């Protein structure tokens, strides 16, 4: 299983990078070890100018380490990083055209908001008036003009986060690195700030690399994203690619909820494949993926919202039956847990499109139901 995963992300990365023109940032086979521990393993990525690129993965998978290598705080054990065509090997952090927004914000506690934002401009060749203008412009961008003279401990968490963003953007970096920029904010402020971040990115045109462990955040913010696991990049693609066309069991399971079925390939004809799924006690057709061999064991994955529930046997090509084991009512939709004869539990999400009382539901506890899905909805995974 492992060897299959290794090959896939490289191919995917090159494919999507080439599609967006000349890559702005090229990460070539970068690894980083701390002692005997490998935090980042053979990562290759290409990031296009002006996009928001998300690094998504569980805790300890090496996202921060990769970001710190881009910023110049860590040196890769092997491999090279190019930014705007320039090899970054041996270039210290203070000479890189890169700025970072730290997870803890790292605002200077002894400087006012204004001084914090203007700090990076001290080193740039500009007149005092230009510097002042730039600070004013940045204060305006993040709507903090009234707080210019306050110290960081005199403003709220959300305001601090905006100071950190303004400070990182003030020098007009070619690349902005954001380490979990929204992790410290509450849910409401986070949603608001997500849109603000995208707005600011569109206004400034700076390339953003955002680290996050929140899949929804990655989906909302990014143009493209890389899913990481144990120091490796598992898949690179647009949020839709990653959600609808995961190419490994890890990525499919990491994003959203999903049910996995063991399956065996019966036959492949063009774009569709016929697979036998013991848990469904039937054969189903699904969109074929490269690398399917007749008789091979594969995984069939179904997302809860792609399955339709009905009481009577449907006309659909792919149908199987089970018993309602549990159900949860969430208002706009309901989540059903359907038990199959062999004990597998399938999650099904159905939108409550019609207005009805409890009696109007498709099914309740212990009802026998039919489940069906389109051949396109099923994801076949060879890894």
């Amino acid at each position, binding site marked *: 299983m492992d060897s299959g995963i290794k090959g896939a992300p490289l191919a995917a990365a090159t494919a999507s990078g080439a599609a967006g023109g000349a890559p702005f940032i090229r990460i070539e086979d970068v690894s980083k070890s701390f002692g005997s521990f490998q935090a980042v393993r053979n990562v290759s990525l290409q990031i296009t100018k002006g996009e928001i690129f998300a690094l998504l993965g569980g805790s300890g998978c090496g996202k921060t380490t990769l970001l710190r290598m881009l*910023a*110049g*705080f860590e040196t890769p054990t092997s491999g090279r990083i190019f930014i705007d065509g320039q090899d970054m090997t041996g270039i*210290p*952090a*203070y*000479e890189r055209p*890169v*700025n*970072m927004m*730290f997870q*803890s914000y*790292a*605002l*200077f*506690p*002894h400087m006012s908001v204004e001084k914090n934002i203007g*700090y*990076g401009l*001290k*080193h*740039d060749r500009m007149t005092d008036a230009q510097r002042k203008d730039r600070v004013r412009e940045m204060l305006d961008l993040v709507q903090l003009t*009234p707080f210019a*003279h*306050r*110290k960081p401990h*005199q403003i709220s968490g959300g305001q601090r986060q905006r100071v950190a963003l303004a*400070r*990182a953007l003030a*020098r007009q970096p070619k690349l902005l690195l954001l380490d979990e920029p929204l992790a410290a904010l509450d849910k409401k402020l986070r949603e608001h700030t997500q849109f603000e971040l995208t707005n600011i990115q569109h206004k400034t045109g700076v390339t953003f690399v955002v680290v996050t462990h929140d899949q929804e955040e990655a989906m909302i913010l990014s143009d493209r994203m890389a899913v990481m696991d144990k120091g490796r990049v598992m898949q690179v693609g647009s949020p839709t690619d990653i959600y609808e066309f995961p190419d490994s069991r890890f990525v499919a399971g990491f994003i959203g909820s999903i049910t996995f079925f063991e399956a065996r390939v019966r036959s492949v004809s063009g774009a569709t494949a016929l697979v036998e799924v013991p848990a469904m006690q039937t054969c189903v057709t699904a969109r074929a993926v490269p690398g399917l061999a007749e008789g091979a064991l594969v995984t069939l994955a179904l997302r809860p919202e792609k399955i339709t529930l009905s009481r009577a046997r449907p006309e659909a090509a792919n149908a199987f039956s089970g018993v309602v084991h549990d159900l949860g009512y969430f208002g706009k939709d309901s989540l059903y847990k359907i038990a199959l004869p062999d004990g597998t539990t399938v999650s099904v999400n159905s939108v409550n499109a019609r207005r009805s009382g409890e009696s109007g539901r498709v099914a309740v506890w212990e009802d026998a139901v039919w489940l069906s899905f389109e051949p396109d909805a099923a994801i076949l995974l060879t890894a």
Partner: protein
Amino acid sequence: MSGMEDTAAAPATRPRRTGWLSLWFNRRGWADITIATPFLWLVVFFLLPFLIVAAMSFALRTSTSPPFSFGTDGHLLSLQNYARLLTDDLYIRSLATSLMNAAVATVVCLLIGYPMALALTRVSRSARNILLMLVILPFWTSFLLRVYAWIGLFGTNSWFNRGLTAIWNALAPADWALHSIQMMNTNFAVVLVMVYSYLPFMVLPLYANLEKLDLTLNEAAMDLGSRPWRVFLDVTLPLSMPGIIAGGLLVFIPVSGELVIPGLVGNPSQPMIGRVISDEFASAHDWPMASAVAVALLLLLVVPMMLYTHFEAKAQEKKAMEP
């Protein structure tokens, strides 16, 4: 003190007499005692003695026992001692020598101690414990013994003196060449031994302060284009100011009243203020004068500090209120 009222009031409200004491202890007694103990200590062993000294400074010297009395010439309080303090230039000169030596010693301690403290925060944990141990180690041998060791080093025939002389002769022009350097009984010796003795008092508070600093701030400054030296000036140095002030006071205050070091290696014709106070008490038996000098020294050290903190707090407040 507040406990006294409690013990008096408690039996009336508590039906069971055996319970009230333990109740008081459990409710707030321990907190009261923990807070009150150091206060009591300060009041009994610092504030009261100081008030006695302050009162004595307004008395006059007599040949009775104890050798002072209040209001012999009609006035209860006499300002005669303070008048002498301002007119007799022995006091002013010795005060100037003290403050000068203390200032130089403090600055040198800071210049040596700061890099030491900074290095302590940057080495591995195990090395750090060993180095901290080494900083404290001198305290384990007698202070006097260490000063006497220095006296040996200052001697004209010691390797230390000959080494310094050789360096001087190599660097200075030929007609300034020396046979040996006169170090014993100079302010140079006094300052050197002071720096040597008080260095840990500078290093330890500085280390405690620097160790708490968030290293991501350094990274942030570097990320914003600052080279390491600039990072130090812009981030580390201003944030370590409380440590510098604490270390500076811990060295400056005891050093300016230091008696033993100048007595052993200093110039007897240029006494420091500690010597003057001690002489007034012990040799001249002029307790009121000694007290006046002590009070003046304390005021000189404490008043500027209090003014500084007061205005610093005011300035902070004002800045925060700005729109």
